[in-house]
C-alpha cells in the first residue's frame, strides 16, 4: 500500500476544499471498499480526508413528508430506522440484504453509493481493465463475465454496480445532495451515475472535491407496499446475481403507479422505466408483469456466461410484482436447507 496522509477536516466546506485542491486526495467514509482497494493496489490516494466525524449522521423528516438521510449514516442505522422500515420497506430490505452485520455497521450511505464494481478484472491490478487503466482492454467479454452486465454496458466495459441500497434508492426516486466548490446542489440518483460508453473510468457526474452530504427520499405513499428481492449464489453475505426493488400501487385491479429497479445487471442501479411505462393503467396480473419485464429486457445484450440473467430477471420481476399485487411479500431469503438445522429450538409454523 502506498503511504498516505490523514486529515480530519473541521467541516464539510473544509473537506471539500482540501480534496478539491490536493492531488490524490479522497474522502474516507466507512472505508469498507476504499481500504480494501488500497490493499489491492487499485486505489493509491496520497491523502485521506476522514469525513466520518462531520455532522452528516442524522435521519430527519422533510417538510414535504419525505426523509433526509445524512451521507454519514451507517447502513445498519438506516436499516433499523422505524420510519424507513414502515414507509420504505424496500430500502430496509435492500440494506439488510447487503454485506454483513460488521460491514453494515461501518459502511456509510454516501460510500455505499460510490462503491466500486467487484468485477474481478477491475480488482486485479495484474489484468487489463478499461475502468482502472483506460485503453488497456477488457478481458471480461471473453473471460469471466458470469456476474457482469446485460443492460447498459459498452464494448469497453460491462462491470456491474454492486450496491443493493442504491437499487432501492433508484426505485424510490431518491435525490442526492452534493456540496462542491460552488453552491450546494441536488441531483436525481439517475443523474449521479454515468453509463460506461467509451469512458468507463468516469462512473459519476461528480467533480473533484464534490461531497455527497445527504440522500433525500421523496414522499411516496405506496412505497409502504414495496419489496427488495436478491438472488445470489449463497443464502447470505454475497453480492447479488440479480436483484429487484419494486413498489406497487394497485386500485380496482389496475396498476395506478409502480416503481421498478434492477440490481447486478447494469453498470448503474437500473431504473426500469420502460417496464414501468408498460404497466401503468394495466391490470395487475402476471401477464402484465412478465410483459413489462420483457419490454425492459428487449435492450439486453447478454454474453455467453451471463445470458441466464435475462430469464432470471424476467422471473424475479414477475414474482416480486405478483406478490406485491397479492398483498403478499416475497418469501424469506433463506432457502430450505437452512431451515433443517433448528437444533433443539422450538419452531412454530410459518
Amino acid at each position: 500500500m502506498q503511504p498516505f496522509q490523514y486529515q480530519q477536516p473541521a467541516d464539510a466546506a473544509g473537506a471539500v476544499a482540501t480534496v478539491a485542491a490536493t492531488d490524490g486526495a479522497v474522502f474516507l467514509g466507512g472505508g469498507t471498499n476504499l481500504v480494501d482497494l488500497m490493499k489491492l493496489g487499485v486505489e493509491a490516494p496520497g491523502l485521506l480526508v476522514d469525513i466520518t466525524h462531520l455532522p452528516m449522521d442524522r435521519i430527519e423528516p422533510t417538510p414535504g413528508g419525505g426523509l433526509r438521510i445524512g451521507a454519514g449514516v451507517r447502513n445498519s442505522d438506516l436499516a433499523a430506522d422505524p420510519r424507513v422500515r414502515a414507509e420504505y420497506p424496500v430500502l430496509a430490505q435492500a440494506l439488510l440484504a447487503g454485506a454483513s452485520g460488521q460491514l453494515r455497521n461501518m459502511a456509510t450511505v454516501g460510500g455505499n453509493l460510490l462503491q466500486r464494481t467487484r468485477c474481478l478484472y477491475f480488482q486485479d491490478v495484474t489484468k487489463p481493465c478499461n475502468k482502472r487503466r483506460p485503453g488497456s482492454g477488457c478481458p471480461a467479454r471473453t473471460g469471466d463475465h458470469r456476474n457482469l452486465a446485460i443492460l447498459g454496458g459498452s464494448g469497453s466495459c460491462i462491470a456491474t454496480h454492486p450496491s443493493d441500497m442504491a437499487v432501492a434508492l433508484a426505485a424510490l426516486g431518491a435525490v442526492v445532495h452534493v456540496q462542491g466548490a460552488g453552491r450546494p446542489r441536488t441531483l436525481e440518483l439517475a443523474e449521479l451515475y454515468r453509463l460506461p460508453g467509451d469512458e468507463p473510468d468516469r462512473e459519476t457526474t461528480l467533480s473533484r472535491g464534490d461531497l455527497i452530504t445527504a440522500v433525500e427520499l421523496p414522499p411516496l405513499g405506496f412505497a409502504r407496499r414495496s419489496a427488495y428481492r436478491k438472488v445470489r449464489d449463497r443464502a447470505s453475505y454475497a453480492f447479488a446475481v440479480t436483484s429487484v426493488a419494486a413498489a406497487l400501487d394497485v386500485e380496482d385491479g389496475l396498476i395506478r403507479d409502480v416503481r421498478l429497479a434492477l440490481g447486478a445487471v447494469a453498470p448503474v442501479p437500473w431504473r426500469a422505466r420502460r417496464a414501468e411505462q408498460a404497466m401503468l393503467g394495466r391490470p395487475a396480473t402476471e401477464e402484465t408483469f412478465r410483459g413489462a419485464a420483457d419490454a425492459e429486457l428487449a435492450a439486453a445484450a447478454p454474453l455467453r456466461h451471463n445470458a441466464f440473467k435475462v430469464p432470471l430477471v424476467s422471473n424475479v420481476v414477475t414474482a416480486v410484482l405478483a406478490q406485491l399485487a397479492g398483498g403478499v411479500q416475497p418469501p424469506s431469503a433463506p432457502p430450505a436447507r437452512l431451515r433443517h438445522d433448528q437444533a433443539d429450538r422450538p419452531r412454530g409454523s410459518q
Partner: protein
Amino acid sequence: MGLVRTTEPATSVVRLRVNGETHVLTLDNRTTLLDALRETIGLTGSKKGCDHGQCGACTVLVGGRRANSCLLFAVAMQDAEIRTVEGLAEPDGTLHPLQQAFVDRDALQCGYCTPGQICSAAGMLAEAAAGWPSAVSAVPGTDPSARGAGPAAQGADPAAQSAGPAAQGAGPAILDAAEVRERMSGNLCRCGAYVNIVAAILDAAAATTDEGTG
C-alpha cells in the same frame, strides 16, 4: 488554485482506548486497527484471516458495535472505545457468557475464527436487543414471532413484534437458528463448526434473557 502536494510524514500519533486501557502509539498511517492490536499492542486474540473484510476473524467492538478491524485504519480510531476478545471476560477470570457457551457447546475445532465469532456474537446480541431487523425478520410474514419460535433477546415483547414491521424496533428481535445464521453470516468457519456455534449463541442469548442483563 493549483493542486497541493502534501509533504508531512505519513505517520501519526494515535491514542487508542483498548479494553479500558489507553495506548499512545506512533503509527504509520497504513496500519490497520487489527495490525495495531496484534503487532504493536500485543493483543493477538483478534485474528487475521483474509485481511479483506470477508471472513470476520478480525471482528472487534468499536463503541460497542462489531466491526472488521482489518478494514479500519488505526489513525482514524482516535479515542474510540475498542473491545477485543481479551476484554470480554470479567477481571476475576469469569468467562463472558458467550465464551462459556462456546466452551460448553464445543463450538469450535481449530479455534482460529472463534475470537471473531464471539466478538461478533456479542455485537449481534446487542443489535437484536435493540430491535434491529435482519434479512430474515425484515420481510413481512417471516419474522420469527410470526413463527412462534425462539428465545427472545432480553425481555422481548412478542406482541410488539407480531404487530408488523411498523411496530418493529419497539422491542428486541427474537432469535432462532435462522436469525442467528443470517446475523452471523459475516463470520466464516472453515472447520464448519457452525452447528455448535449457532447453538452456543442461542444458549448465550437465552441466558442473557433469563438473567435480564445486557
